């Protein structure tokens, strides 16, 4: 029990079914305090459902959850004042001003009148809304809305912050600013669980979980995850990349080949000398190609993880 102080979220066999759809299936999760923990996965992979179950907004069909030492969903009401939750879609009131929105949130989060007005003033300053307190929230740009939503979700200085795809509709510069803010919060001791489908954002996290169709398919630090693929990623330069891609997909052991400019990024499975097989295939086809090793990226991790999971599922079905 001693390490519970260090653990912010612990989930075991977490599952959620909607009718016949298994949105989340047997997810095990451990998030240490003070971490920026990333949820990576395509749309519909169960990221939002998992986050909602962790904050007690959805009742799991199966499994156990402990968040900040509280049993969820039984003790969800107690948890609310210790967490911040930033929804995927902008959920502040568009017909209230920035000041009114933050004041409202401060009041429902049990801040006293004096605390609230100090905190709101401070947040407006810190989040770049100085002098715009009386602007309606609905008139903000996409990036500004996200910044305001973040400010709103931390008005009560929560220990744990859930962010559901906070930057999915935001330009790259706003995304960078947004992540700066997240790291400031993490430095101040806030545990952050953030979902995304951007690889560059995933790379910034202390630790990552990759979700695919409700299953947790990989879990670890970005370095561990990419390190495990060392030697399996190749760069193939060929004259006609589109034809080369068709040829590559027929070589045994090639999981994926993605065209990047004039070259192809290839991910192989663990078996044998993939580079040799590719070279021989090109030679046999009378095409010239240059094959070299390249450092694995999180995208490769993602492709490899979802592909292996698919293979496991197929094997399961055929048995």
């Amino acid at each position, binding site marked *: 029990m001693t390490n519970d102080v260090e653990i912010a979220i612990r989930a075991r066999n977490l599952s959620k079914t909607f009718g016949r759809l298994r949105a989340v299936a047997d997810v095990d999760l451990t998030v240490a305090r003070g971490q920026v923990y990333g949820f990576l996965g395509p749309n519909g992979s169960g990221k939002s459902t998992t986050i909602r179950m962790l904050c007690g907004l959805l009742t799991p069909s199966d499994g156990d959850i402990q968040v900040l030492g509280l049993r969820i969903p039984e003790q969800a009401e107690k948890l609310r004042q210790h967490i911040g939750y930033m929804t995927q879609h902008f959920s502040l009131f568009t017909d209230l001003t920035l000041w009114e929105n933050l004041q409202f949130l401060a009041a*429902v989060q*049990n801040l006293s*009148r004096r605390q609230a007005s100090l905190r709101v003033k401070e947040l407006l300053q810190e989040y770049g809304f100085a002098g715009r307190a009386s602007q309606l929230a609905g008139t903000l740009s996409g990036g500004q809305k996200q910044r305001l939503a973040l400010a709103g979700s931390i008005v009560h200085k929560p220990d744990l912050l859930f962010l559901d795809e906070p930057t999915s509709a935001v330009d790259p510069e706003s995304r960078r600013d947004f992540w700066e803010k997240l790291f400031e919060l993490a430095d101040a001791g806030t545990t952050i669980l953030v979902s995304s489908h951007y690889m560059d954002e995933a790379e910034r996290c202390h630790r990552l979980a990759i979700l695919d169709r409700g299953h947790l398919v990989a879990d670890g630090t970005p370095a561990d995850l990419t390190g495990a693929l060392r030697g399996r990623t190749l760069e193939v330069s060929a004259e006609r990349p589109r034809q080369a891609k068709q040829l590559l997909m027929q070589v045994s052991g090639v999981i994926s080949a993605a065209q990047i400019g004039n070259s192809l990024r290839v991910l192989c499975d663990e078996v044998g000398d993939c580079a040799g097989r590719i070279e021989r295939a090109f030679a046999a086809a009378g095409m010239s190609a240059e094959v070299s090793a390249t450092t694995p990226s999180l995208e490769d991790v993602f492709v490899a993880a979802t592909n292996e999971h698919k293979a496991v599922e197929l094997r399961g079905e055929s048995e």
Partner: protein
Amino acid sequence: MNWRRLWAVVIKELRQLRRDHITLLMIVGMPILQLVLFGYAINLNPRHLPAAIADQALTSGSRQVVMDMLATGVIEPVKDAESPQQLMSMLRRGEISVGVVIPWDFERRRALGESSVQVLVDGSDTVVQNAALQLAQMPLTYTPGSPRDSSIPLPELPISVVAFYNPQRVSAITIVPGLIGIILTMTMMMFTAVAIVRERERGNMELLIATPVSKGELMLGKLLPYGAIGLIQTSLILLSGVLLFQVPIRGSLLDVYLSALLLIFANLSLGLLISTATQSQFQAIQMTFFVFVPSILLSGFVFPFEGMPEPAQWIAELLPLTHFIRLIRGIMLRGAELVELWQDWVALLVFIVLMMVLAVSRFRKSLD
């Protein structure tokens, strides 16, 4: 119940309402508009009905009859006609509501005491029909009997009607008290019916339920500001009813407001229940009409309660408006006291408690 959080929800609702200009306009405009509409336009003693007169006799006697008819102000000639056939086609086309035929042998018929003038009337409107019946009696009182060939049987004897509380039969006096109920039912139920479902549609609900704000605070916080608005509407209708139509308030003004407050909260709590049961604002509005239409028809506002078949009366007893109409007519027109009418305010109170309990228990602070 945390008062600071409850107050925050109330203030938030009021701020949102302040920015919603159309709703604001509706709050003030609807009572006044409805009052003027019901009070002036829906007059059960119509005047200036479009008419045409086919005078085939063209004698001084026939002209005198026409002049007498026009002098009543009930009809106003808009077309010329020469034959009954012409009048009938005008009626069919809706160009006139009343046609008057004076046959060529008018003088001879009058001398013999036969029916000498025929009034053709658009019977598809009962109000017009009644007006025409009166008209038919008025100028020709010395003509006994009724026209055999007319589709409108004229009464043999004039029926005298003695109306208590509204001897002049001014529609506004009975309508204004009921109108408070109609307007409050319509606006109050609508406000809260969309209140929760709107926040669900706009995504605000996911934010709200992730905060420590409680179900009770959220519900009551939505109820209180609209309760205040209901009282403002009540005052508007009362004030314009008194100023425009000299509607009497024979009982105590406090009783009037207490009854109004009961109806306001009955409708607000019913609206909240609707809001927890629907998926979209559109559905919520549909549901309010599902309650609103029977309320208008069965509450005694339009038809007398006693005249309705028993099953309809049972349904009417379930509607808050029925009890309010009894209360408000009793207090405003008969000068009754609220205490005397205890069945009706107890019924409203029970209704409010029941609806609130159902609404709060149906509402879940989760997305399941």
